[in-house]
């Protein structure tokens, strides 16, 4: 069971900040959108399956529609030709949204230092957490998800309206 946020407790009532409650809810029900293109995607399948079980973190419900997803998990080599598709998927996601870049290829291009491969997805969309590895083990992917959970739990209610966030998106030419 999730740990309840700080608050004032008494017989029959519990008072806390709305921001904390929403953070708690978001943290424990992150719906991932798996964007799996290669071997990191296979590791993700292991992460989803019973042995590692991403469901323990409230993320067993994969959303194959970007509109209901909270967390974009990019796993694998992204060719330059795939770039616009990935960007469109990101743009279709509703706020708040987080991006997890799994593996060397998604994070930096990895071994594919070549004309046809995007040298890291952060060239086209903002990334919240990078998971290193080629491919990373399921434990590492889980740790990446837990880092996103920490971000979701502590995120300020108004962050997505802040000028800093708008500036970040504008630097990627989004909106």
């Amino acid at each position, binding site marked *: 069971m999730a740990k309840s946020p700080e608050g004032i407790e008494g017989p029959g009532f519990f008072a806390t900040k709305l921001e904390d409650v929403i953070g708690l809810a978001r943290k424990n029900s992150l719906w991932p959108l798996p964007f799996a293109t290669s071997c990191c995607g296979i590791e993700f399948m292991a992460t989803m399956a019973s042995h590692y079980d991403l469901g323990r973190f409230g993320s067993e419900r994969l959303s194959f529609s970007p509109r209901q997803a909270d967390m974009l998990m990019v796993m694998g080599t992204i060719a*330059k030709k795939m*770039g616009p598709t990935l960007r469109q998927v990101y743009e279709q996601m509703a706020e708040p949204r987080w991006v997890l870049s799994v593996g060397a290829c998604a994070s930096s*291009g990895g071994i594919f*230092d*070549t*004309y*046809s491969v995007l*040298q*890291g997805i952060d*060239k086209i969309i903002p990334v919240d957490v990078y998971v290193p590895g080629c491919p990373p083990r399921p434990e590492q992917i889980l740790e990446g998800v837990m880092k996103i959970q920490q971000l979701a739990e502590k995120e300020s209610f108004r962050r997505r309206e802040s000028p800093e966030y708008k500036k970040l998106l504008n630097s990627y030419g989004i909106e």
Partner: protein
Amino acid sequence: MRLKVSDLKSQNLKSIMELLNQVNEKLNANFAGQVVSAEMLYDFPVFTIKTEAMHDVLKFLKEDAELNFHFLTDLTGMQTADEKQLGVIYHLHNMPKNLRIRLKTFMDINKPELPTATDLWPAANWMERETYDFFGVRFKGHPNLKRILNVDEMDIFPMRKEYPLEDQERTDKDNSMFGR
């Protein structure tokens, strides 16, 4: 009777040599002076044809009843080691007799143009687009000559030696250690 592998090999080689000579004779009879060379590379007959005659030669090989090279297996490009010429290579197949030949033609890299083969084989359409995409060979008369595999915005022909293989936007590599 049991055939030894070496027998089989020499027998095959003999029939391939016959094929080479047969095709060579026919081409020389119909296209005098257009066949630059006819040779065996390993166990494969290879003809080098002048670019101007390439399309007619392909049409002849396809339509000649005896040779009957009716199937285009592959069409691809290359760049010569001196970086001054581009080549286009055709692999033809006669399926009823299971005979294969390879045809090459070379063009100046500053003017890589030759007629399309899409009128003979619709399959040449995408293969010519690929050759254009990677080498910049312009196939005259092609119905839709644009990039097929790379992004449309790309302004280079990546398989040409004058362009670097590596992505120039890479930021996390130390050039002195990776030989870029």
